[in-house]
């Protein structure tokens, strides 16, 4: 591992550490008991309550306690893995556009519209085993990519910031998508607004029937390897990264930068398009979102944590869903609100993205390097 990467690893680790400490302090102060106890007793009680809460928070997703015995929590584990899948996929999608320094934050809309489009395929396409789910996913990718084309074209034709247009497109996707579901494919027998059930052939195979552990994680891992290969081993990915690192230099090296910027958004859109439908095909078996699931936003967090490196995306996604499942577990067993996790997320993102955080270390190393050999020249130069 190179110096720069190692530095980023330390930085992320320290950021997570600080955030956890902050969370611990908040829980500690919120569990401070009232009443006529002495201060020492109050502190002791708050400590034990906080430690209890953090036990569930940090270990809950993988361990369950039955009496004194600590057992493997298979349900929590499967929930953790299943929740990782969609945000891992959006993380990959966002990593691609961010690598090109394009601030397209349309993953949420792309995954929503992808899921809506693919719902039609899942309900209406011929029920051919194996082929059917592949087709459904392909439709989702097409819809996501198509949705990403719009800000891309507006950007290249009218020079409108993709940040604004892709954000706006998220709302359009949401309301347009719900309209389509409601008008064409609503399950009239259900009490709430959901689509008709997917055909059985459109569902993903399960690894565990009881807790519905679907093969989405395998797809996500496969996708990670694919995106890694695409970004690090192909001329296409090289162009995207070079444009992101220094667009003037890329142009100067003979790369057609507008085209690269456009393509990166479309490919990212295709990948984001899969994120939602995979969860629907694996877990719910129908379209049921009445609010946008937020995985697109999570993708931004994950890509940022992973420094846009596809290989780190699974780690970041696993981490994020782990603290979320942990927070939910904590909420079930204690009276601490699971929303605490939002504070932790915010603190981590803030510290990771704050370039100045610990940057002095780095600067010192660079200064040393740059002045080495210079100091000795001073005398000779004045000749």
């Amino acid at each position: 591992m190179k110096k720069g990467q190692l530095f980023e690893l330390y930085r992320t680790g320290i950021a997570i550490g600080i955030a956890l400490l902050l969370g611990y302090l908040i829980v500690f102060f919120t569990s401070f008991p009232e009443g006529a106890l002495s201060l020492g007793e109050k502190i002791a009680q708050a400590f034990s309550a906080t430690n209890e809460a953090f036990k569930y928070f940090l270990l809950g997703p993988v361990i369950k306690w039955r009496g004194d015995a600590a057992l493997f929590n298979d349900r929590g584990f499967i929930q953790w893995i299943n929740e990782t899948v969609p945000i891992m996929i959006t993380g990959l999608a966002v990593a691609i556009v961010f690598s090109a320094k394009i601030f397209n934050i349309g993953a949420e809309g792309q995954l929503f519209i992808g899921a809506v489009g693919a719902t039609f395929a899942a309900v209406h396409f011929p029920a051919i085993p194996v082929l059917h789910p592949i087709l459904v996913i392909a439709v989702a990718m097409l819809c996501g990519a198509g949705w990403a084309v719009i800000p891309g074209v507006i950007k290249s034709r009218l020079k409108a910031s993709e940040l604004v247009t892709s954000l706006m497109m998220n709302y359009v996707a949401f309301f347009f998508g719900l309209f389509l579901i409601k008008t064409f494919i609503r399950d009239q027998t259900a009490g709430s607004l959901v689509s008709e059930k997917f055909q059985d052939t459109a569902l993903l195979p399960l690894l565990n029937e009881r807790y519905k552990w679907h093969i989405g994680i395998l797809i996500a891992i496969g996708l990670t390897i694919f995106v890694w290969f695409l970004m690090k081993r192909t001329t296409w990915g090289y162009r995207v990264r070079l444009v992101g690192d220094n667009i003037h230099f890329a142009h100067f090296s003979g790369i057609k930068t507008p085209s690269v910027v456009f393509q990166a958004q479309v490919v990212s859109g295709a990948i984001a398009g899969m994120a939602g439908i995979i969860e629907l095909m694996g877990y719910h078996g129908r379209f049921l979102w009445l609010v946008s699931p937020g995985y697109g936003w999570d993708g931004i967090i994950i890509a940022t944590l992973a420094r846009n490196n596809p290989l780190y995306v699974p780690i970041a996604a696993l981490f994020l869903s782990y603290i979320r499942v942990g927070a939910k577990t904590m909420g079930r067993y204690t009276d601490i609100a699971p929303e605490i996790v939002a504070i932790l997320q915010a603190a981590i993102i803030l510290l990771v993205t704050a370039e100045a955080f610990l940057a002095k270390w780095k600067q010192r190393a660079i200064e040393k390097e740059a002045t080495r050999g210079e100091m000795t020249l001073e005398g000779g130069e004045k000749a």
Partner: protein
Amino acid sequence: MEENKPILELNDIWKVYPNGVVANRGINLKVHEGEIHALLGENGAGKSTLMKILFGLEQPTSGSIHFRGQPIQIHSPHNAISRGIGMVHQHFMLVPSLTVAENVVLGMEPKKGLSVDVEKAFEMVENASKTFGLPVPAAKKVKDISVGMRQRVEIVKTLIRGADLIILDEPTAVLTPQETVELFDALRNLVEMQKTVIFITHKLKEVKQIADRITVLRRGFVVDNALVKDVSERDMSRMMVGRDVELTIEKGEPQVGKELLRLEKLNFTRADGVQAVRDLSFKLRAGEILGIAGVEGNGQTEMVQMITGILSPDEGNVFLEERLISGQFPGQIRPLGMSHIPSDRMTRGCALDTTIEENLVSDRFTSPEFSSMGRIKVRQVTHFAHEMIDRFDIRTDGPKTTIRMLSGGNIQKVVVAREFTAGACVIVADQPTRGIDVAAADFIRRQLVLERDRGVGVLLVSADLTELLEASDRIIVMFHGQAVAHFTRIKDINETILGEYMLGIKKMTPEEMGDL
């Protein structure tokens, strides 16, 4: 003249920017109270950085600042102002839609209740301009007054904030001759009131007219300081452009071949209306190094950008081996046999967060050598990078290190390695050794000569005259966008002679220049 005590002393100031560029290398500077101290040096010599440090816009990497005998640290411009250090920037920091008075009191407005006491503000400004002998039209809006007047407003602005030391960054660059005279009168007036002025410039005539003392910077070092009355313009020119190190590049007679590059009557006017290049024509032949000398800002940048496809000329053409290339994009010109070492290597020369090996193949990664069917042959790329690291002596941990981790000299070697191995017939080297260490610079110069001996045509644009004199086979001097001198016998000239043409003291007739 009686020697006043120094008001400002800088000791061993070093400045290393985060990207590893060393701008100041142990600067010592003493400014005496009540003097006009000219800071002389080419662009890139480190003047601006030094002044930014004084005004709190940058922090020095090491070294100390003493002001009125006290060691101080200047954290911010605000901090500088409160200590009595004021700065007038080259680009004025005024709000055009506000009146002169409002601009002057901005941030320290006299209040009447919650609103600004306009009358009081007027009074303050009028008083100040009377005291300092700098009349300004207090009621007029800044957008309606002339450039010279705006500058005066800026000076009043610093004075009213209690500045005793005023830094003027190339103040005459924007002035008409008449305004310059007025400015100088005003400055003399200030000095009589025991104010101290630091005057950044590279116009020697003005130094002679106004300054008491000069300090000359070159490549981040102080080369000399002297009383102005003791030195002539010629002396100053020599100090500014003089010899940094004993440079000797061994090279034989050039084996000049056919014409490769031809510029025909190039003209270019910048967006700000300045005609940067006028009627520039010359030829570059195979096997020669053609040096371009000139103080920066005399059209060299625009010329290079027109040759390499970043700018399109307003008039005139550029031909590469008889093919018209002006108006085309870099991506189209490059494959025709043009390599370019850009003067700003951080912008156009490399991608900082990308690895060395990837930077080395940025122009050729689609060639069958390095990729097939869209897949990059990483092993070949790495292998090639190892070769380049050896051949161009790039000091690094390995080809997978990002460019950001390298020193300026090594970054430049990466750029050079790529551009010299592209198989080009013409290499445009724009300030190829600026801001890099001596050993790396020497290495790069030798490589230029090697390329020339292989029959490549090299266009060398450089502010380092020693380098030009040592490396070039011919030299053209540019002044105000035109070719003003042409030397074919380099052995017969020196920095002083070049300096006289560069600074506009002399000019050759077309007959004297001959066939460019």
